[in-house]
């Protein structure tokens, strides 16, 4: 039993390990080739970056920054989820909202949320209170995916499902509970997954640009590295940000989506 489990994990892991290995290999090749910045700083290798991560952990910089950033990500994400769900439901329920809000949402989704940073800073980051500005940017980045996911999966409900609900006399809350919520769940979860990617990007942009006035997160480590021309620190930050993005997707959203689709027979067991 234990052995099977181990084998399964290894089987799932090796393509990732190979992909990461190739990436690190290319990186190391560039270092060996002697790539330099115009200013004459040489590119740090993967070893340098990982060593720097160790140093940042040891000096008690990285872990608090990571938790600070994750806290912001979690709060911003939950707010975006709530707003996106409310707007998605409203658009689904009220046909008049449909035409206008539908295309507006698609527009907002393609709008890079970093464009909100200056406005958010001006209006919300009053007296060094940058958190609200950060949340605003994250919410604007993530909520359209949630609302769009809900809306498009509602559009994809087979007409027969509506006929069935009507022929059974399902109305009001029961109609939503037994038919609409369950039917839109896969699209909603796909939207949640996409919203995570958007909120993570938006958060990094916000932390990086709103910058040193914010209590420090991963974005500030990156910004700090830039101002000190500390290339290993910059790479350590980028690597950490990448790993967190992948980890949350692979450990939270991907299994959630896979389980859901498997139970419905939409992907093989």
């Amino acid at each position, binding site marked *: 039993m234990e052995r099977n489990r181990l084998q399964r994990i290894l089987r799932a892991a090796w393509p990732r390990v190979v992909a990461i290995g190739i990436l690190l290999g290319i990186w190391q090749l560039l270092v060996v080739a002697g790539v330099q910045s115009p200013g004459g700083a040489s590119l740090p290798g993967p070893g340098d970056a990982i060593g720097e991560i160790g140093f940042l952990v040891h000096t008690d910089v990285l872990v608090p920054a990571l938790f600070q950033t994750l806290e912001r990500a979690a709060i911003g994400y939950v707010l975006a989820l709530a707003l996106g769900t409310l707007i998605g439901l409203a658009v689904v329920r009220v046909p008049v909202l449909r035409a206008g809000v539908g295309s507006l949402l698609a527009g907002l989704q393609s709008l890079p949320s970093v464009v909100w940073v200056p406005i958010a800073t001006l209006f919300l980051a009053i007296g060094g209170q940058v958190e609200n500005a950060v949340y605003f940017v994250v919410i604007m980045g993530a909520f359209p995916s949630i609302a769009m996911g809900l809306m498009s999966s509602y559009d994809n409900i087979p007409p027969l499902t509506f*006929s069935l609900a009507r022929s059974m*006399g399902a109305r009001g809350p029961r109609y939503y509970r037994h038919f609409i919520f369950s*039917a839109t769940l896969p699209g909603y979860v796909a939207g949640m997954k996409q919203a995570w990617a958007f909120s993570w990007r938006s958060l990094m942009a916000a932390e990086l640009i709103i910058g040193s006035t914010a209590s420090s997160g991963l974005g500030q480590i990156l910004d700090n590295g830039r101002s000190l021309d500390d290339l290993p620190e910059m790479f350590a930050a980028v690597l950490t940000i990448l790993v967190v993005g992948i980890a949350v997707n692979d450990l939270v959203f991907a299994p959630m989506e896979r389980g859901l689709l498997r139970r419905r027979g939409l992907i093989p067991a």
Partner: protein
Amino acid sequence: MTVALFRRPAVLTVEADDAFVTLEGVTKVFGHGKRAMTALENVSLEMARGEFVCVLGASGCGKSTLLSLIAGLDKVTSGTIEIADGRPAVMFQEPALLPWLTVRRNVELPMRIHNLETDQRNQTVNRLLSMVGLIDFADHRPHQLSGGMRQRSALARALAQESELLLMDEPFAALDALTRDQLHDDLNRIWQETGKTIIFVTHNVREAVRLGDRVVLMTPRPGRIAQIWDVDIVRPRELDSFEVSGLAHEITQRLRAGAASDGAE
């Protein structure tokens, strides 16, 4: 009037006051103005409680439209539809099972919607699943079942609605011949056990003759009733029996004669 009772003195002719389902001059027009299309014209029919009526016709004759009007899924343009009690249960050509629910949960769905107690629900679901032969598959999900099993589940779900009237819209059309034959037997048995009133829409002449107390033939453009046959062949019937084949042949001849001679008037 386009309704013609012929062949034998009607065994199941219904007195007006104990008709269970009454269609009176039902007309359905889709669209407006120049693009208006008359799907049904002046369809009148009475059904007795417990009767099994097969509505037969080529595609486009309005038989499915008629069914969705009776189901209340669409509104008549003119005429009236009266059902003595309750909301009819509907079974569609596709099983329309909810993929996120097990067979058991799918079957109990109508009862959950109408807020029945858990005990009562479980009892009814077990009884119905045994009736359609799916008790061992109660915890499977729809995608794990064969086409025939899915339609059995859909039948159990329709029965779970505890409606006196069951509307079936070509429910076995997508199944292979062997499975269909088996489901004919099962449906015949279940109808006899439960005493439901059934309106069964099909384009398959033998299927109609095999199952129905009456066969209502419809002709297209506009959809109207061409002729009605009483089928007094002893049940259970077999698809290739002499009697079933004979009447099916007669109906097929009438069907071929087609829209040109819209006889029976």
